[in-house]
């Protein structure tokens, strides 16, 4: 296991480095957007105010409060320090709410929507892919082409169609939000019921798209594995079909795990768009609002959370992969 520890530490080091680079980009990129957020806020607050001097005062006090009057590099150092303490500053657009406070309220919604949706979509997609490879028939002729079709649609298109058909037209499900807007979050059954109702449409949209993408890859991997020599040999040694299928599934799914690592970024960003379409109270919707109002601290906070999520997901996948695939273990750990 010693060599596995080495593998783990090496990977960990790389991910840490990536994280630092990401934080840096996170700070600088939003500041390249044209426009001055403070003037947006000030002009909003000072509507009807005629005194130019008072406006200027207000502007300067905000600049100072947000630290925007300091040189950029100094701002960066302060930012970095604050992040390490979990402090993302004060939101420009929701002044005086703290960004960390907003994120804390949004993250459970996003996690609650995306983790189950992506995992279930991945699992169902792989099962479907394996079935179409193995059983052919109805799976291969109807369900698989349908999966292909869904996969070729952009995330937002599917979400909008779902919203339109089941929300607006059939009125089966609410059209937006995380729970009934007249409700106050608590643990009552009626509130949980409302949450689940609001959860359903965005959840299904994400699951459907994920299924399509995974099924395609899994199908061709399974066909390849089914034709391999070890399958023939195992069958001819009298091993029952169900067990052979398990061999095949395992070997075909391993590359799919890497596939998940590669596609998790796309999946998360797609899922964020779904949140926007359904006006779901998660990170995606907040990020969308923040971009519209040039709310730098909130933008950085959201993107940082997203980066963190993608990195964490990738890291977990690689670590698991290293554990379950002996081939990776052998090649990755020895190195070239």
């Amino acid at each position, binding site marked *: 296991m010693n060599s596995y520890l080495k593998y783990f530490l090496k990977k960990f080091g790389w991910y840490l480095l990536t994280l630092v680079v990401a934080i840096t980009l996170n700070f600088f990129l939003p500041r390249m957007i044209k426009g001055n957020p403070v003037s947006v806020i000030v002009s909003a607050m000072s509507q009807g105010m005629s005194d130019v001097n008072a406006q200027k005062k207000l502007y300067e006090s905000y600049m100072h409060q947000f630290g925007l009057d300091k040189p950029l590099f100094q701002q960066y150092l302060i930012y970095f320090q604050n992040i390490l303490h979990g402090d993302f500053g004060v939101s420009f657009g929701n002044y005086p709410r703290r960004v960390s406070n907003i994120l804390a309220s949004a993250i459970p919604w996003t996690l609650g929507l995306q983790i189950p949706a992506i995992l279930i979509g991945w699992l169902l997609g792989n099962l479907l892919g394996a079935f179409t490879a193995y059983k052919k028939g109805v799976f291969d002729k109807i369900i698989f082409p349908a999966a292909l079709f869904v996969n070729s649609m952009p995330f937002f298109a599917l979400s909008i169609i779902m919203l339109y058909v089941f929300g607006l037209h059939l009125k089966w499900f609410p059209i937006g939000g995380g729970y009934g807007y007249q409700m106050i979050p608590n643990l009552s059954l009626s509130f949980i019921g409302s949450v689940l109702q609001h959860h359903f449409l965005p959840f299904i949209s994400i699951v459907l798209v994920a299924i399509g993408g995974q099924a395609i890859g899994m199908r061709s991997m399974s066909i390849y594995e089914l034709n391999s*020599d070890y399958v*023939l040999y*195992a069958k*001819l040694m*009298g091993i029952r079909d169900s067990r052979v299928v398990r061999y095949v599934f395992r*070997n075909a799914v391993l590359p799919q795990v890497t596939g998940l690592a590669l596609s998790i970024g796309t999946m998360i960003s797609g899922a964020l768009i779904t949140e926007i379409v359904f006006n779901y109270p998660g990170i995606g919707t907040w990020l969308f609002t923040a971009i519209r109002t040039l709310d730098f601290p909130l933008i950085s906070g959201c993107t940082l959370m997203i980066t963190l999520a993608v990195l964490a997901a990738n890291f977990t996948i690689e670590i698991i992969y290293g554990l379950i695939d*002996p081939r990776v273990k052998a090649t990755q750990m020895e190195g070239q």
Partner: protein
Amino acid sequence: MGQTILTVSELKTFYRTRLKENVHAVDGVSFTLEEGKILGIAGESGCGKSTLALSVMGFYFPPLNFKSGSIVIDGIDIMKLSREDLRTKVLGEEIAYIPQSAMNALNPTKRVGKFIEDILREHRPGLSQEQMQRLAAERFEILNLPTRALTAYPNELSGGMKQRVVIATSTILNPKVLIADEPTSALDVSSQKIAIKLLKSLLAKGFVKSMLFITHELPLLKHVADDVMIMYAGQIVERGRIDEVIFKPMHPYAQALMGSIIVPESDIRGHRLSSIPGAPPNLKNEMKGCRFADRCIHTVDECRKEEIPERARGERTIRCLFDFDYQSEETAHERR
């Protein structure tokens, strides 16, 4: 002398391809195999040797299909058994298989010992895990394999070792018939020698009762087999004692084959190898008459009229209308 273990009569099998064509890869093969004997099968690549091996196992799955004929092992026609009986009582128990590319015959993500357990679980349901492990370890010891190979993944073993592991796995249930499909052609001469020694010792110790040995290396066959069958385009064209067939082949194809053997013996250099122009017939087509007719220098009209039956010539069986004696290939096959 020995008791007959395996009788195959008029076996015909075909591949059903994706394009819905039938490839008649085994087209009327009959032979018997006696206790203690090694029967060699040699022939042009693509003539159906591996397919014959698979067909004799009696366990068909797409794209390979059974057409007609019988396979009798120890008095039981295995083609009359139910598929489940065949799988649990015949495969591995009565007749076992060593695949052509033993290098890829092992599931890359399964430890060798675990795979053997899976096999034993199918055939010896009463055994405890320890008993299974003990059985595997004993067999490994007999084959001079280190016990650590049991806990290894296939990619941790060298080519020669993998081959020996497959030999051990295939014979774990002491089958009556062992079919070895080119078990050594991927090995270098030294590992080949070791593998052959093992196979022969298994036969001598009675762990297997008889063997079908497929190879295109005739010099090797000469030291391994008792009898040999020469196969061409799905049929057996000549059968007899190995020394006689190698040194005095009777069928024109066998004569060409023997004339092209290369060994590092001093008279081979500068010696003209016989080669036959043209390609073997397309196995998709229904064929009439001699399959070798297009490439044979002795062909007359009669050869193409109807199916050539097998006939005895001395102790030999040949599938040719004429009695050609083997001369040095320079005279018999010089065409240009």
